[in-house]
């Protein structure tokens, strides 16, 4: 017999709630459920077959399609390609307040050093108390140079300085730390756009907190609109985070989650594994 929408509806309603429990944004959960309904319309099922396993299989498909969004080159490949041209790879890190940008930059620095690259960090958060000292201490731990000016100086100017410094000293990668900013603050979003315009980054990385709920959607939309996002890093996955934000963000902007933050040490950065992630959500 043909699978009826009457039969599917309650299963999808239940699925929608379980996706929300996993911190998938509500509208994204709705979208996923309607995609599943579409994929299963007119499908033939056994007279007494339970539709749940079929829905699960389709869900897995839909989630993997979203998360495995094809992107031209991987993160490290992009860095390698730029460096092999004899130019420093410039990576701009952006995101809202407290998402974990500064620590993540240090983790990425550690990873790049392990991969044989030289690194410097631009202290382009010239606003928040203790921001410059925080970068300096992390840079010292890594054994890399932090390029800074004073508090209140122009963020784009510091970033530009760092790129020039990297060029002059043959440093492979410039990691630009920026201030946290609410995506609703137009002037701050414009400032971020200016930093990108001045430094012309090879990669823009959106650092998102995996504990974020529905706001992840609006954050990703706005940051994508103002400065374009190449990769996403989701932090605090060790905080019992279900990580649904990965699905919401990838669905919305079609960009992959490259890494996840799994703790507060410099080693706590792992490549994002969509298969393993979907296995945890689709139980």
């Amino acid at each position: 017999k043909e699978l009826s929408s009457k039969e599917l509806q309650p299963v999808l309603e239940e699925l929608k709630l379980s996706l929300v429990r996993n911190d998938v944004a509500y509208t994204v959960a709705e979208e996923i459920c309607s995609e599943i309904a579409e994929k299963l319309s007119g499908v033939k099922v056994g007279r007494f077959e339970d539709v749940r396993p079929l829905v699960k299989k389709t869900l897995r498909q839909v989630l993997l399609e979203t998360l495995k969004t094809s992107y031209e080159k991987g993160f490290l490949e992009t860095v390698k390609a730029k460096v092999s041209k004899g130019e420093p790879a410039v990576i701009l890190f952006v995101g809202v307040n407290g998402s974990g940008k500064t620590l993540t930059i240090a983790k990425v620095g550690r990873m790049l050093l392990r991969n044989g690259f030289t690194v410097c960090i631009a202290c382009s958060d010239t606003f928040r108390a203790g921001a410059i000292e925080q970068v300096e201490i992390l840079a010292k731990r890594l054994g890399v140079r932090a390029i800074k000016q004073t508090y209140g100086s122009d963020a784009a100017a510091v970033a530009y300085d760092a790129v020039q410094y990297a060029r002059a000293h043959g440093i492979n990668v410039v990691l630009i730390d920026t201030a946290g900013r609410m995506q609703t603050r137009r002037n701050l979003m414009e400032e971020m756009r200016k930093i990108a315009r001045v430094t012309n980054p090879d990669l823009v990385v959106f650092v998102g907190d995996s504990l974020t709920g529905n706001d992840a959607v609006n954050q990703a939309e706005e940051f994508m609109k103002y400065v374009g996002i190449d990769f996403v890093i989701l932090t605090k996955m060790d905080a019992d985070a279900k990580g649904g934000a990965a699905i919401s963000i990838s669905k919305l902007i079609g960009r992959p989650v490259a890494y996840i933050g799994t703790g507060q040490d410099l080693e706590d950065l792992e490549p994002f594994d969509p298969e393993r992630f979907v296995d945890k959500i689709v139980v």
Partner: protein
Amino acid sequence: GLGKSLRSTLAKVFKASRVDKELVKGLVNDLVRALLQADVQVDLVIDLAKRVEDRALNEKPPPGVTRREHIVKVVYDEVVKLLGGENVSSPVPKLGKMNVYMLVGLQGSGKTTTACKLASFYQRRGFRTGLICADVYRPGAYQQLKQLGDKAGVPVYGEPDGKDPVKIVLDGLELFRRSKRDLVIIDTAGRHKDEESLMKEVKELYEVIKPDEVILTVDATIGQQAYSQAKAFHEAVGVGSIIVTKMDGSARGGGALSAVAATGAPVKFIGVGEKLDDLEVFNPRRFVARLLG
């Protein structure tokens, strides 16, 4: 945004020719949608929806109140109930003693910034305030608190190279006792419920210091994990009040509702920006209006 949908549903309630099961079902569905999009915990939403539906269909409206008005009031009442009611206990330090408040919360939830906002708030109201940095992990934590404290004109105690937060706090409290402070606010390191040694540490801090109030900061953008994280903090140290930070963004703060439900603690302030005066005394009506749209 979605807020329009609940408002338009409530408008439908008023325009409808008869208040029947269909209408109530529609309203409850829209309410569930609104609360889930606002990040309220799923089970809390389901329970609330059941109560609203039950009351809307079976409760007799009080004399002089139309069935429609009653339904709208039921929705509002049930949500406010989750917030612990409409009364905001005015957060006033007790006179004649040195009050000690301790800030706890998840990484990046706004503790350090809020500690200084609170210090500035109370200092401006005549309470001699002091700040203690008990975060020994985050690089630059002491410098961050010191820079903010200097701006607020509030003395800051910390031991930047210290490793023992209990010792730092005891040293700081002793210093502030001698300089006759009315209120000392302790900033602690960010932590989550699965960081065993950090949860053990905050428990120890609580037991040694016996603060007058433990304040939990909750990021307005937090999703479904707010409930279980808040519950874990409450079980470790007994949360006395909640401050919802980053309410100046687009997030509706449903996680705060979940945190209140998990701790039984009231929301006393909200953070509405990064500056020292971006702190507002909590207004339940305004919060619920924003939550529901």
